[in-house]
């Protein structure tokens, strides 16, 4: 069932937008819509993708799309899904695209409500690990050590002091029909998961890492490379939750060097060896748990 580039809908549904060059978020949105096709009805909260895609009269979505309130991605999806059903329409997919702040912080209550009701929607979190649209402020998904404009790296505090919230497992803890993690670095895996989600009834949650060159401090040409490396070095994992079970999709024999991944990025350049040791330790503990209790593909 693997989705290949040639299987994608030839039309573009997110085009002419004003996202920064090399934007990982726009890559995730673009390709998810090419899997779901023209009858996708997209909800995007206030945030990067809505800011770059919906400036009247420059409207960059080729399919039906609407901006929600920042906190309201999931609740607006619920309303649209119910409304279309009331109109007797069945051949559509209600899909939301919210950033990390819109998902793990301000939107988590509405998302939890939608999963609780098991509304028939797909919720995709494009995670660029900070509030990038407003100028790189810390979100609940900013990783440990990252420098943002609200977690500056100084002598006393080396950037963000808290690890990422685990949104994938938070979604899974609702006993959601389907949840998955992905990265835009491994596009086919992401596309497969979007396709799979579109074939499951109930609420689906996909969490996709989508690097932001501006916020991460990497060259605009390195988005995909960074999005691969985060999975290769073990700071992200590709997994699914379905029928009450976790499955790991990608189990690297050997992790690539965490320090190399971190030091390429401006946001981590200040980290000391001790800071990096903390990151490696928490990575290893996580993987020990994953390999000990999840299905390994």
């Amino acid at each position, binding site marked *: 069932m693997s989705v290949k580039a040639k299987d994608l809908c030839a039309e573009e549904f997110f085009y002419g937008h004003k996202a920064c060059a090399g934007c990982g978020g726009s890559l995730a949105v673009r390709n998810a819509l090419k899997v779901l096709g*023209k*009858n996708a*009805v997209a*909800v995007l909260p206030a945030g990067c993708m*809505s*800011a770059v895609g*919906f*400036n*009247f*009269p420059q*409207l*960059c*979505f*080729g*399919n*039906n*799309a*609407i*901006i*929600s*309130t920042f*906190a*309201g991605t*999931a*609740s*607006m*999806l*619920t*309303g*649209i*899904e*119910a*409304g*279309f*059903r*009331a*109109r007797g*329409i069945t*051949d*559509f997919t209600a899909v939301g695209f919210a950033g990390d702040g819109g998902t793990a912080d301000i939107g988590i*209550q*509405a998302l*939890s*409500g939608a999963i*609780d*009701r098991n509304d028939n929607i797909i919720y995709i979190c494009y995670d660029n690990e900070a509030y990038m649209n407003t100028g790189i402020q810390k979100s609940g998904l900013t990783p440990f050590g990252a420098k943002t404009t609200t977690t500056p790296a100084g002598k006393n505090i080396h950037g963000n002091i808290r690890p990422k919230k685990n949104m994938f497992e938070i979604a899974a803890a609702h006993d959601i029909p389907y949840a998955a993690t992905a990265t835009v670095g491994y596009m086919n895996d992401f596309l497969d998961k979007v396709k799979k989600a579109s074939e499951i009834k109930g609420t689906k949650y996909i969490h996709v890492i989508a690097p932001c060159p501006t916020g991460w401090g990497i060259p605009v040409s390195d988005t995909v490379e960074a999005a691969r490396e985060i999975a290769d070095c073990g700071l992200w994992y590709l997994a699914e939750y379905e029928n009450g079970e976790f499955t790991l999709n990608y189990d690297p024999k050997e992790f690539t060097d965490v320090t190399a991944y971190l030091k390429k990025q401006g946001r981590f350049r200040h980290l000391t060896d001790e800071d990096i040791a903390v990151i490696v330790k928490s990575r290893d503990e996580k993987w020990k748990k994953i390999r000990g209790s999840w299905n390994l593909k």
Partner: protein
Amino acid sequence: MPKKFLSGDEAFAEGVRLAKPDVISAYPITPQTIVVERLSEMVEDGSLDAEFIHVESEHSALSCAIGASAAGVRAFTATSSQGLLYMAECLTYASGGRFPIVMMNANRSTALPWNIYGDQRDSLSLLDSGWIQAYAENAQESLDLALMSFYIAENEKVSTPFMVNLDGFTVTHTYEEADVPEASAAENFLPPYRTENKLDLESPKNMAFSAGPEHNYIFKYKEHRAMLEAVSVIEEAERKFAEIFGRSYTGLIEEYLTEDADFVIVTLGSIAGLCRETADKLRAAGKKVGVVRIRYMRPFPASQLAAALKNAKAAAVLEKDISFGNEGAVFSEVNSALFRYGTFIPTYNFIGGLGGRNISASDIESIFEAMEKGLSEKINFIGIGGERQ
């Protein structure tokens, strides 16, 4: 028409059933809860064919209703007080997007201190949110406004969300006899909702977009113009309503004995009844007094009020509201209207009923007396006294 013994909340729920919304999304809050309980029962027993969405907050209640409206269907929600404030962000969203959602608000005090009883500070603090605001006096008017609100909001020229306010407990929980129209008659009154303001698979839309400084104010101007259009659509709705159901309403304001009145109380909501009774009593004693009940705070009845008070010697605005550091919000609005239309009479503000505190017949009598005697203080708190300068 079958008569039923109903509370304001129950009567409103009956009106909503007759209006047949496709999607209802609501979160419980006292004193609104009875509405959502009744509607849930109606969905359960099949007498209402709607999607009832159990949202996890008021913000989601209105956000979900906006989604449903953007999908092109009729949407309803209900809230009160803190809930209304919690969803406030979505209010301007619904009005700016021109989504004709109907919401019932049970007027209740806002914290702090916590209090579940009725005053009107919740809705009056949101006059600028772009919603039509009506204030019902009793159960019958609640039911009738439930039906009329959809008619008015969904009119193509108006296409603006509609908030119907019921005084907490005094209307929401007070049982009265009310006529419940037949479903067939309600169908004759309220046409199905049709709109182009929707997501559409045949003709895809990008909705709820941004508009920069060059265009933004034109959108806002058109939003304002649409609200003004509501004035004639309210008249049209009431005319049609009277034809079908035999009950008449009087537009943005309701006047009582104002024609030759020297002293007039201007108020809104359930307290108007006691004001009229008091006026009757004083009339019997030879006093020329009258009452104006504001039915709609938005669109605001500026010219109507100026005309109604044109021949009065003085007017007093009685309201369950205070805009801290200034005066009652309704008082400001009334004064502005009188000034704009050249009705220059002394006006006084009487603030009462905050946090559900009782306003008695003798309080109202004192207001009429005070107007007649003339008052040094413009802003007066019932039971406390005039504002200290």
